[in-house]
């Protein structure tokens, strides 16, 4: 089997994800509207016109909008990562998964292709969000938009692999609401996306530690630092590590036969 087959499978998966994305225009809009609502409405309520205290990577005082922008970028990646798990469950229920699995390439390659496809599409949305946020006065250094790219890709892979790992566990479409409640919201709220961790610590020590152990915190910090042309090594190590763990888990636990067997049992 030569490289072309791999490439063919890869482009096939990307194309399919791309068409799905084009057809669900509302999904693109909602992926943009959600963080924008947070930026405009939520940040307005908490509007720190008098400035948020200096914490790295910021060199001076910032507005609250500026603070939450990296977290909102990661929010887009989080929702897309989870939504991809939804599409996997959907594919499985509709049977299109079987078609995909006919491919002669290893299953892990298909999963990696899927992860990259999700990441690519998410990045379009993240940069669209950053462009609008720029108009709203969130102006990171222009070069930071480029240095943030590898960080965003890595975070997209992390959240995508968490999504894929979960999709291997979710058997029915209806369970997706559960994922929302038990994965997306806690991950997002119990992180440094909305408040700096020192602020969390002021309110309670255990809350601080939960946030500290949440990989999403480190994903947000990685993006935050990269957006200001800085490398947060700790965040990079943790994000990279958890990505590898979840990607491996996703590949291992992804067993298409399970549902095939489960189907007649259900009927």
């Amino acid at each position, binding site marked *: 089997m030569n490289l072309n087959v791999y490439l063919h499978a890869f482009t096939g998966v990307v194309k399919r994800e791309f068409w799905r994305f084009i057809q669900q225009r509302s999904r693109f809009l909602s992926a943009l509207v959600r963080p924008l609502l947070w930026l405009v409405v939520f940040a307005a309520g908490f*509007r720190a*016109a*008098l400035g948020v205290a200096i914490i790295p990577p910021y*060199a*001076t005082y*910032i507005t609250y909008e500026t603070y939450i922008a990296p977290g909102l970028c990661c929010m887009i990646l989080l929702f897309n990562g989870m939504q991809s798990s939804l599409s996997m469950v959907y594919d499985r229920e509709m049977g299109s998964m079987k078609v995909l699995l006919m491919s002669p390439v290893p299953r892990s390659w298909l999963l990696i292709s899927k992860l990259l496809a999700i990441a690519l599409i998410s990045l379009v949305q993240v940069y669209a969000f950053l462009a609008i946020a720029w108009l709203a006065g969130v102006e990171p250094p222009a070069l930071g938009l480029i240095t943030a790219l590898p960080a965003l890709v890595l975070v997209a892979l992390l959240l995508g692999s968490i999504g894929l790992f979960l999709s291997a566990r979710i058997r029915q479409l209806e369970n997706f609401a559960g994922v929302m409640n038990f994965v997306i919201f806690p991950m997002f709220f119990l992180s440094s996306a909305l408040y700096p961790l020192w602020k969390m610590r002021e309110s309670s020590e255990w809350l601080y530690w939960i946030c500290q152990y949440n990989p999403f915190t480190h994903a947000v910090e990685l993006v935050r630092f990269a957006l200001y042309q800085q490398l947060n090594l700790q965040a990079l190590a943790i994000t990279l590590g958890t990505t590898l763990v979840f990607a491996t888990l996703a590949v291992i636990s992804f067993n298409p036969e399970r549902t095939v067997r489960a189907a007649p049992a259900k009927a």
Partner: protein
Amino acid sequence: MTIKTKLLPLMIAAALASPAVHAAKAYISNEKDDTLSVLDLNTWEVVETIDVGERPRGIALSKDHTKLYICASDSDTVQVMDLATHKIIENLPSGADPEQFALHPDNRKLYISNEDDAIVTVVDTESHEVLAQIEVGVEPEGMAVSPDGKWAVNTSETTNMLHWIDTETHELVDNTLVDQRPRHVEFREDGKLLWASSEIGGTVSVIDVESRQIIQKLNFEIKGIHPDKIQPVGVKLTPDGKYAFVALGPANHVAVVDANTYEVLDYLLVGRRVWHMEFTPEKDYLLTTNGISGDVSVINVADMKVERSIKVGRYPWGVVTLAD
């Protein structure tokens, strides 16, 4: 044309003295710590902290840039520091509680406002003699000498007036009524206009020096900040006369004003309770002292953006910058 003629010698000097430019420094008085912080303007790091008299507030360079005058308010003296050695070499008689002062272009006469005694003391920096004590309004604060050396202007916080003192006769010649609690006065480089900030009034008055009348009053408004918090204190004008910067105290912002149309162009977020400001020697950055947050914010003048904030001592008050 005037800009060019002024810039040319500057550029030549900069080209010739580039090693000196690298050692550009800022001195910041820390009111609560009784110290001065020395900030390296290339690395943006505090390189030295110097112990001085009690409650240092206003600071000013001698015209030849060899000495630094420091109002040590609670020591009731104006200290003189040698800039080469960073040692206090003498104490000048200043009257009680000196807060702000201004040096005459002759490099000798120092005009000091004595907040508690409602007087302005004039001291000869060479003979240490008190040349005059002029009665002004209650709680004198801001002090400036016109570029031609003709006028010394003092602001009194409680009387709400600018007091015009003739520097030849040392007599109070005229008063200009401004809004509540005038804190600071700043002459335009050509000496034709005077900008005066009113802390409680929340305004800045622009005064024609010849007629000593207010020709324009500026108001400030920042979305999301209560008007009571907008308390203008420090004022700085760019040497090209294009822009004015107004420090808005507890509003944590510096207003950027078009100095010709008097339109407020922008509000820049800096540290907490911003008071006084100074340009770097090359005029490309503006430093602000932020009292409550204990830091100095650095504004890039070309971009009109705050680039960084640097921790100094507690309650930084005054700032001067030095090219070598």
